[in-house]
């Protein structure tokens, strides 16, 4: 019998508020692609950080190639041959991609050589990375690609990938899987962390399921169904979404040939974006991040007010120069991608955070009625089942999923006529994601126009009536969700949509 590459026994880790890992054991064979499945907050990330030496376990033993080891820091982990791609990136904003990679390497290699190697690896695995760009200018997706390249440069024996596919096109996911299979054939073990059941079933040889910090199952994913995996993961099957017939209303939002030069030298310029959103429908915007979605969102929310006159209309009224607040007064609400620091102020309480977008409790003279603010927060917490310490809990004390439910709830509760959301379920656990999606469908049925930007194609197909794709600052024509496939949208994500037909209507 072959020796195990990695064996964990009885790993426990206590955090101030939760026990992230509770007696977790894990056995990885050489060349095995081993899935670690679980909801957000199930303890996957903590377990991986323990293996990578970034977090020290309170209890338990780690064996590497049969020998007990104490991995005290990531440097030791890398020396052993463990590489990791984090879900939350550990890159220095002010340095370029190449310099960031260089930091983790032996300093005898020159930066020019590293840059060269990055280009080679990026080429080999189809990861589009410009090594000379500073990280602060990269989108989330691009940053992850830098991380993947960095991990591969070290020629690891064990590669840990934490939710790697969330920012890739389906074609790129296929390519990544080819790469991973190649690595596995070469004897490199892979720990693949995900909550995407389909991916795990296609890719992985073995699967360890975590729930609430404990192992709830060890299975061969190829022998399982989505439903059985899901039961192991969340203890129940995800609730079915009710999808009713769309009743289209008037045109709520019209974007007409919006062209907007980039503000940041590494941003994306918007080129002739046109779209029409009607009341009572959900329009999904697919695309790899960094292709102009953030810029379009800023232009639609009013955070970027440079749009040319007449390019954005709300119920037939030109709003291109209006700020966020006047747009909200006309019924356009927006949920941004970043929860902490943009959608909510981390240090302020949930109650105070209602005041960002809700003014019911502010009198005309600018006086804040505190009790009403608190009452509104209490209502939101109750109505949207937010697990929080109450209306006075600081926003940052909530888990990602709960804070997102609260922010989405805050905007949904304002009875918007148009709701625009960016990555509504990014990093949100399955239960909360389902709640949010159900909420969006309900809003649509009530006649609200909903625009969703997401990198999760499954999500877009699940809730959207129509889909458009953004690539390189341009927008594809729209297509009804039931008339298209993941493959077609994936192709469009590379910018390959039929151009002639696209001019008429989006």
């Amino acid at each position: 019998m072959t020796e195990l590459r990695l064996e964990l026994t009885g790993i426990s880790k206590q955090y101030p508020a939760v026990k992230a890992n509770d007696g977790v054991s894990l056995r990885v064979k050489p060349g095995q692609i081993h899935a670690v499945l679980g909801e957000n907050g199930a303890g996957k990330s903590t377990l991986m950080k323990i293996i990578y030496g970034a977090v020290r376990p309170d209890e338990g033993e780690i064996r590497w190639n049969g020998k007990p080891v104490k991995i005290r820091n990531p440097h030791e982990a890398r020396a052993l041959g463990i590489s990791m791609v984090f879900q939350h990136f550990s890159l220095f904003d002010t340095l370029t991609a190449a310099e960031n990679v260089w930091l983790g390497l032996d300093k005898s290699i020159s930066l020019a050589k590293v840059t060269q190697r990055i280009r080679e690896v990026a080429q080999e695995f189809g990861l589009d990375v410009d090594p000379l760009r500073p990280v602060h200018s990269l989108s989330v997706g691009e940053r992850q690609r830098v991380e993947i390249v960095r991990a591969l440069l070290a020629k690891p024996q064990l590669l840990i990938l934490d939710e790697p596919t969330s920012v890739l096109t389906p074609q790129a996911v296929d390519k990544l899987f080819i790469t991973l299979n190649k690595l596995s054939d070469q004897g490199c073990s892979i720990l693949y962390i995900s909550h995407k059941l389909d991916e795990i079933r296609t890719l992985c040889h073995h699967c360890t399921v975590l729930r609430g910090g404990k192992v709830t199952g060890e299975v061969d994913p190829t022998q399982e169904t989505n439903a059985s995996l899901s039961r192991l993961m969340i203890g129940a099957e995800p609730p079915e979404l009710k999808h009713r017939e769309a009743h289209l209303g008037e045109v709520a939002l019209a974007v007409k040939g919006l062209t907007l030069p980039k503000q940041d030298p590494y941003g994306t310029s918007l080129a002739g974006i046109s779209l029409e959103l009607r009341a009572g429908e959900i329009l999904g915007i697919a695309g790899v991040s960094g292709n102009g979605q953030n810029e379009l969102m800023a232009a639609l929310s009013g955070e970027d007010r440079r749009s040319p006159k007449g390019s954005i209309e709300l119920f037939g009224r030109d709003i291109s120069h209006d700020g966020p607040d006047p747009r909200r007064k006309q019924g356009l609400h927006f949920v941004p991608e970043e929860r902490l620091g943009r959608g909510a102020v981390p240090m302020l309480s949930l109650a105070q955070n209602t005041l960002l977008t809700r003014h019911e409790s502010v009198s005309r003279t600018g006086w804040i009625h505190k009790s009403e603010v608190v009452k509104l927060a209490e209502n939101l917490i109750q109505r949207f089942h937010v697990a929080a310490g109450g209306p006075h809990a600081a926003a940052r004390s909530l888990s990602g999923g709960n804070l997102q439910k609260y922010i989405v709830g805050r905007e949904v509760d304002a009875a918007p006529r148009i709701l625009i959301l960016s990555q509504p379920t990014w990093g949100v656990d399955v239960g909360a994601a389902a709640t949010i999606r159900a909420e969006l469908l309900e809003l649509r049925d009530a006649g609200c126009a909903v625009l969703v930007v997401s990198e999760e194609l499954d999500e877009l197909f699940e809730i959207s009536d129509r889909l458009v794709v953004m690539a390189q600052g341009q927008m594809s024509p729209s297509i009804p969700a039931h008339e298209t496939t993941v493959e077609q949208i994936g192709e469009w994500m590379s910018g390959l949509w039929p151009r002639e037909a696209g001019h008429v209507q989006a």
Partner: protein
Amino acid sequence: MFKLEARPQPSRVMSYASPLIALAITILIGVGIFLWLGKDPIKGLEMFFVEPLKSAQAISELTVKAVPLLLIALGLAVCFRSNIWNIGAEGQYLLGAVAGSWVAMQAGPGTGRWIVALILLGGALGGMVWSGLVAFLKDRFNANEILVSLMLVYVGQQFLDYLVFGPWKDPNGYNFPQTITFLSVTKIPRLMDGYRANIGVLIAILAVAALWTFLFRTYRGFQLQVGGLAPAAARYAGFSSRVALWTALLVSGAMAGLAGALEVAGPMGQLTPYLSVGYGFAAIIVAFVGRLHPVGIVFSSLLMSLFYIGGELAQSRLGLPKAMTSVFQGLLLFTLLGCDTWIHNRLRWIGKPRTAPRRSEEA
């Protein structure tokens, strides 16, 4: 071994206790310094914490120092909460004094007591002009407000010097660089005869109430603070960062200028080049020790003026260097920053230190 770990939520208890603990540590270190200097620590502490509170006269003197600190620090708290780093309050204070002096010098035989209101108003405007410059340069050219406000302190001092050495010099003043002594009608009214405490105390109390209301009960105040805590959230909400910049700087300029006018038309009675004693800089410490909270600043300004008066007493009665005042101020800020760590963090026992090499089992 202990481990420092983040608290899930900032500790309320610690945010109140931290200044008190910091004060205790400052006193302890102070005792050490007294001993080291060969002075009786009890006597030393008495100079700082008992003598300045011993009599009505002493308390009146305490308010003379505390009022300018309090007013300036209140304005700075608004700035710092908005993430605008105005460290040039000293300059705004000087310009307020200059403007107040100009008004005071216009007084003639027929002038009534109403001129006091004009002096104070002039002082506030003078400070606002100086801080408005900072706001303008930041707004228009994105000039760094820390550098600009600081450098304007020195410009302000030079301007004041020019006036008292030149056009404003008292012709009958034996060539001393000072203005005429202001007419008594311009004198800031005192609270009681025989004591130097003046209506500045009442103005300061009003200012505390006004700024508390502004910061915690008005939407404007909320918007300012969101801009300071999370600029992206302020943009998302649609709060104007320009409005925040101008409001915060004009408020703090007005407060510092008001303090300058109160000083020059109050205890000083004339404008001299020695007006600047560092209130504008000490107020930065006052603002932070007071948690950038109007009520907290009341206590910290009183404490800071204890240090000022105590330093003078220690110098004259014990022969200690006057620098003791600055040492105490510095110590307090230093220990406060240390103690503040415990608001957001806590210690946790994590078992024995892991020094033994590669032991396979460990609880």
